[in-house]
């Protein structure tokens, strides 16, 4: 019998400091992990604990994966002390994924902010592998300040594709920092881009308040509830609906999500908290 709690030791071979608080860890699991973009894993620090993270790399790469982690609590604090050469544990993958087959031939909008860009980078990189299958891909990304922007070194590469548009905004530019792109809330970017709401999908991930207002704006622009894909990252503890920490009414974020369409969860409580 397969043990659902199985931990796969994974070799940490590179760390990228994305921003003062965010790092991308590049890991090589002892055996390949077949995840689908949008699914999450549990990453453990031996003797400390584990937490849920969505890989930020393409799901077409099987023998290693990237995990982007913001230092914000106990476990993430320890994850940030890990060094190249250390071994971390991975359980999973768990949960639902982005339904790429439904996105094919469509104008796909991706809206994200802060560390919420991690799963969206995975989606984006996966889609870039076969970018011609999509009519267009528009990625609106936000951060607090220029130095909080992540995946900085990759942006120019992402902007080379003909049917791909990557735009970003920061909330503010503190003195001494340079920025020649937009300064506004990321949701404001929606007014700048040519939106084709009719029947097309929009994918949202970011801090709860951004997801809440982002969803409201998308509805205002005519996106249908069933075409708005939200990554509901709650306290996914076990990964398979046993521990109930991530319960959202009758749903479990870990098992029924983390990717939900808005129409499924709009009547559940406290989804934005």
């Amino acid at each position, binding site marked *: *019998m397969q*043990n*659902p*709690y*199985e*931990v796969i*030791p994974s070799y940490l071979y590179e760390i990228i400091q994305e921003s003062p608080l965010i790092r991308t860890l590049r890991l090589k699991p002892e055996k390949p992990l077949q995840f689908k973009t949008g699914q999450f894993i549990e990453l*453990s*620090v*031996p*003797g*400390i*604990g*584990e*937490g849920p993270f969505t890989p930020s790399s393409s799901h077409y790469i099987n023998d290693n994966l990237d995990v982007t982690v913001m230092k*914000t*609590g*106990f*476990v*993430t604090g320890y994850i940030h002390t890990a060094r190249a050469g*250390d*071994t971390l*544990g991975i359980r999973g993958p768990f949960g639902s994924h982005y339904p790429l087959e439904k996105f094919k031939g469509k104008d796909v909008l991706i809206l994200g902010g802060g560390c919420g860009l991690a799963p969206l980078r995975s989606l984006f990189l996966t889609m870039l592998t076969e970018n011609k299958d999509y009519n267009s891909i528009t990625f609106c990304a936000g951060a607090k300040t220029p130095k909080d922007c992540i995946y900085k070194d990759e942006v120019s590469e992402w902007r080379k594709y003909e049917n791909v548009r990557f735009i970003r905004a920061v909330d503010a530019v503190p003195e001494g920092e340079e920025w020649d792109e937009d300064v506004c809330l990321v949701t404001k970017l929606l007014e700048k881009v040519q939106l084709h709401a009719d029947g097309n999908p929009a994918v949202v991930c970011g801090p*709860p308040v951004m997801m809440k207002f982002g969803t409201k704006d998308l509805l205002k622009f005519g996106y249908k509830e069933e075409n708005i894909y939200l990554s509901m*990252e*709650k*306290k996914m*503890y*076990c990964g*398979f*609906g*046993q*521990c*109930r*920490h*991530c*319960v959202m*009414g*009758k749903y479990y974020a870990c*098992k029924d999500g983390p990717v939900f369409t808005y129409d499924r969860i709009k009547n559940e*409580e*406290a989804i934005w*908290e």
Partner: protein
Amino acid sequence: MLIGKRDFFNFLTGSLPNFDNVIVAEKEISSSVLYLKKIGKDAGKKIELNSFRSTNPLKYFLYHVREKVYPAEEKFPLNIIVGVKACDLKAVQILDKALLNENFTDPAYYQWRKNTYLVSADCDEITESCHCNLVDGKPFADEGYDLNLSSLDGYYEITVGSGKGKNLVDRMTKEFSIKDSSDEERKIIKEKREQVLKKLIEQNKDSSRKENYGRFRNVEMKNWEDESSNCVGCGACTNICPTCYCIILNDESKLKSEEFIKVRSYDSCQWFGYARVAGGGTPRSKMHQRFRNRYLCKFDYMPSNFAETGCTGCGRCIDACPAGIDFRKVVHNTSINAEQLI
């Protein structure tokens, strides 16, 4: 079929079935409560199988308070638990749906279930907090047991409920005399069951409004603020509830080790840190929100997930509560408020 009570215990502790542990509902000396306890070869005197439910729920023996789940243990003892009540069997049905389904099997729970014989016994007595009748339960089991025992003077009337139970009876017949029960004897058992049910209905006559359970979600917050005003959030209710199965998963590997060890232990949705995420956000920061979550879990979420009410009416949460909160009264008051929503 009937077996002498003495014979039954001699069989249990004898060498033929060779159980590693015989766990029996036993009355504490100078106390009115019962505990499910491991017994030795000489036991039998204090055992009162047909009294009311034990203080400790059956889940403690199948889904342990603390248990290593990775790497999974391979050897599990062969256990028999005798004197289990209908309410606990109903709880095991919910645990089975949660922990042994097509998407997920908890390895330790699976092994304990497989290696444990469950012998239920009719309730000939009830305690003040018993209220299974309010949640479609009865003080005797219809299903979910390997064997069921109904007390009849010096004998037990045995009902077989599974293939495992039948094997036990086959072994029993080789060693001890077993006779068929008469129509008259079966009638006595039936009447006794009806009497106990009547007592339960009488005891809980002021709190029967189950038709409103489905509407709890819409009851205004004031109801929950009022009902939870004495709650200290200790989590005794969820710890002792036979259907609560929330856990935390601890990493107990050595620091920097490459051999990972995962241990699960009970958690409680009544605790502040339960749903808190990194950074401090939590969907239920207030006590009344967490208090409400427990009731919605039992009467809304579990019915949606498992098509069963999450409360079996055992009343242990009432006995365990240091603030004296009566689950029945909360449900009753909430039901009245729910009724006004129609």
